[in-house]
């Protein structure tokens, strides 16, 4: 890949969100590199806090991210059975850094989740660390920084943010 502009990045983030909203999680997983990480920090630590010495909500390496997808595709993932309905709105896309094949892109998300007659809103910022590869962009790190005070009243991040 050569030049990547904001429209390409938006297209990539919108497609990613669509795969999550459609519960095509095995396809979503293919967007990640083999050394990828997925983070949702707790809301009382610094945005760039390290998962090695801070308690997060989610800190998956690639293996556990794969297991998360495996789990979520089962009927026995009770928190998501019957599956919740999701709509991710992705906006305010900005290139934060671009060095060689690495691009760090920031965005804002507002995600609606409905299940059993209850609708919750999740909002915050995403930081994607992307790599340009022969097959297009891949995610090396996705960090979802919730802007709410804790997870109240949502109570859980049982789906993919």
């Amino acid at each position: 890949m050569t030049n990547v502009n904001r429209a390409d990045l938006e297209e990539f983030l919108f497609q990613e969100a669509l795969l999550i909203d459609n519960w095509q999680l095995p396809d979503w997983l293919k967007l990640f590199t083999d050394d990828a990480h997925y983070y949702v920090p707790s809301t009382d630590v610094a945005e760039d806090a390290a998962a090695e010495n801070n308690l997060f909500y989610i800190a998956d390496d690639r293996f556990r991210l794969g297991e998360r997808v495996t789990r979520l595709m089962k009927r026995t993932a009770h928190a998501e059975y019957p599956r919740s309905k999701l709509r991710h709105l992705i906006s305010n896309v900005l290139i934060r850094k671009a060095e060689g094949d690495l691009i760090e892109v920031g965005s804002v998300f507002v995600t609606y989740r409905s299940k059993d007659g209850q609708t919750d809103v999740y909002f915050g910022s995403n930081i994607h660390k992307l790599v340009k590869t022969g097959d297009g962009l891949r995610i090396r790190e996705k960090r979802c920084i919730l802007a709410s005070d804790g997870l109240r009243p949502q109570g859980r991040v049982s789906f993919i943010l």
Partner: protein
Amino acid sequence: MSGLDGQNPLVLVDRENHSFSVARRSFVDPVILEAERERIFSRCWLYLGHESELAKPGDFVTRQVGGRHVIFAKNPKGEFRALLNTCAHRGARVCRERSGNAKSFQCFYHGWIFGLDGNLRHLPDEEAYPEGFKDRPSSGLKPVPRFERYRGFAFVCFDENAVPLTDYLGKATEYIDIVADQSEAGMTVVGGTQEYSIRANWKLLAENSYDGYHAATNHATYLDYLRNTNGGLANVALVGEGRDLGNGHAVVEYKAPWGRPVAQWIPMWGEQGKTEIDAIFARLVERHGQERAERIATRNRNLVIFPNLVINDIMAVTIRTFYPVSTDYMQINAWALGPSEESSWAREYRLFNFLEFLGPGGFATPDDIEALEQCQRGYANAGEVAWNDISKGMNRNPPAYDDEAQMRAFWTQWNSRIGGTAA
């Protein structure tokens, strides 16, 4: 038999026939929640925080405990303080930050300034008040009525006449000791708080926190995950006991196949991990002898200190408290605890372990949350289907870790405080 002040009973016990039932009304009736606020959350010792959260003089955290706003602080002399966070003047919450370091607290409304011991130090236009006004106890931030600590865990009680903390904890101190003894330098709360909520009655989380019966079905995907990990399991079977510790406190203590940073090795941790875990275990033996070291290292404990302090010493150690906002909504705070001297290797695995099971993004807790919320939904039918069955294991002694003796301990205490007598 009276339940709540002369109404129908809330807990029905027939020991001879091994029957123990709890009225589902206990989870939905606002009158009962009111009684709980008065007779439980205003009378019992409640967890405030851990000493490690306040490292230096001047450090403070603010939190809600039993519905009250409390400041937990370390004064300039290094002494711990628990103050009610409301201005003596006209009531504003004085400290509005979650945590920090301060020499004093200034109320932003009219500018009264309080010291870390609560004394009023300064008030604008002091001449408008009689002499000595500033020094009256009623002019300061009021300390919580009772404040005591046990092995790093700080508690408050809003009942002036409560028994001392150690009497209240009773036999539960043995289990707090086991957690505190995991460290030579002191246990410490790791940075980051999991703050979440469940749309269910608070008592459902007390029950769930030491429910060994639900793992196979409710946590099927977690068990699948463990089986898929390469070397994620030790060759250890799930086996253990449930114990009533008196005063409503109870514990399950059991062996389990997952890795424990203090100190049960699993193949996934490799040779470096083996060396680290062996060294941690050797130090435990030096300090506590072989038998106690093995108990600390290889047994898991899910402890609930009545009414709402969970200390689970499992694949990681979590402290958790929870409070009702309404009959069908609770707020939860959870922290990770670890030895302050542990290596970065052990800390990393501790947190990795914590998140694979625990918390609102883990592989297990979300399914607990779902179960609790579905129970609460089910109680909409309490008029027709009125009772929960909590009798599992009444027919064996000792009860197993996956029986319900621990919940019977909770409900027996709850019932005695709420005013019912078990029929």
